């Protein structure tokens, strides 16, 4: 059991803090409003709640780190390679 609708519901739970808190408080209500099959609703009501919170926090940290990431660092250091010619090419 898996569907685009279930993946979208999971993506919303992982990224929408308000929805996630509502779901944790009242999973029956939130899943009844989602477009999910009865099997998917049942699976969501038995979700690993601690894992959901931890995964969501981890994804949020990742998104934040991407926003802060200096994009120039790769080109800056890759540029070093252009002047480093001491190693012969490897085949």
């Amino acid at each position, binding site marked *: 059991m*898996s*569907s685009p609708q279930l993946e979208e519901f999971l993506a919303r739970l992982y990224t929408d803090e308000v929805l996630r808190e509502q779901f944790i408080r009242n999973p029956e209500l939130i899943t009844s409003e989602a477009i999910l099959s009865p099997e998917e609703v049942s699976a969501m009501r038995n979700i690993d709640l601690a894992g959901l919170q931890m*995964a969501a926090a981890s994804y949020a940290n990742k998104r934040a780190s991407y926003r802060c990431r200096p994009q120039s660092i790769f080109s800056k250091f890759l540029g*070093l*390679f252009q002047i480093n010619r001491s190693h012969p090419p490897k085949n």
Partner: protein
Amino acid sequence: MEEVVAAMAEEEVVAAVDVEAVVAAVNLAKDRVGLGWRGELAAGIFTNLDQIDILEVIADDYFHMDKRNISALRRMSSYVPVTLHGVAMGLASTIPTEKFRIEKMARLVEAIQPESWSEHLAFVRAGGIQIGHLAAPPRSPQSVAGAIANINTATRIVGSAPILENIATLIDPPASTLDEAQWVTEIIQGSDTTLLLDLHNLYANCMNFGKDPAVELLRFPLNRVQAVHLSGGKWVREPEEHQPPKMRLLDDHLHDVPPEVFDLLALLGRHAHQSITVVIERDGHFPNFEVITEQLSAARKALQRGRQLAIPYQECA
């Protein structure tokens, strides 16, 4: 007669041992150990290329680079073998991967001519929502079918098949009807591709969901393992409302490879007969490069340890 038979049997045993030794030696010669390219490690990488067999470059970092940087990466690939590693295609999904994402990889592969490219068995977006990282989809026949369709599309557009990586997850993916080893095996076999087996991801998932990593490792399609990732992580506590809060292992790539993961590499080397490319990933909290070279050396030794104990082919069947 008995002496002749005994002598022949002894010869066969010696020959078998010799063959095993040769196979192990050949594999050892072809096994490679390398590092994930990170700008912060550049100086150490350039001065230690004699200890680095291959560099893995995050493809997505170069999708929008200018010609000068693409040219520099191409030049680097002429000095040391390069493999490209994608992180945002979202292949393991019931939702078709958008073609423009695959075409970015195709253009980079065309420009760089790497020896291979890889992606994750993960979904990263759905319904226009970007999760921002690799998420485990429900492990089911439907997501197996979706992944195989996406992998086939990617293979056709890029012109070569991706090596596919298992991911770490802090959440036991809901609505799953297959366990991780079954799910990965069905996708790898169904798409006729090879596996980039991330041993820390495997280890973390086993720690988080109460499984024995050595047992689980042997349930993966080890004859399809082309490459291996090694990394480290940290233990994080479950939220307080879950009593008693337990610890889960977060694969953060910010810590050294733990001994348990090197042991898994040795076990893999014992059971897989093909040559394997090992890449150590480090994304931050960068240590002195000596620590990195020690980890590279430890990986070689672990693989060598496994090869020396290699299980003969007939026992692996």
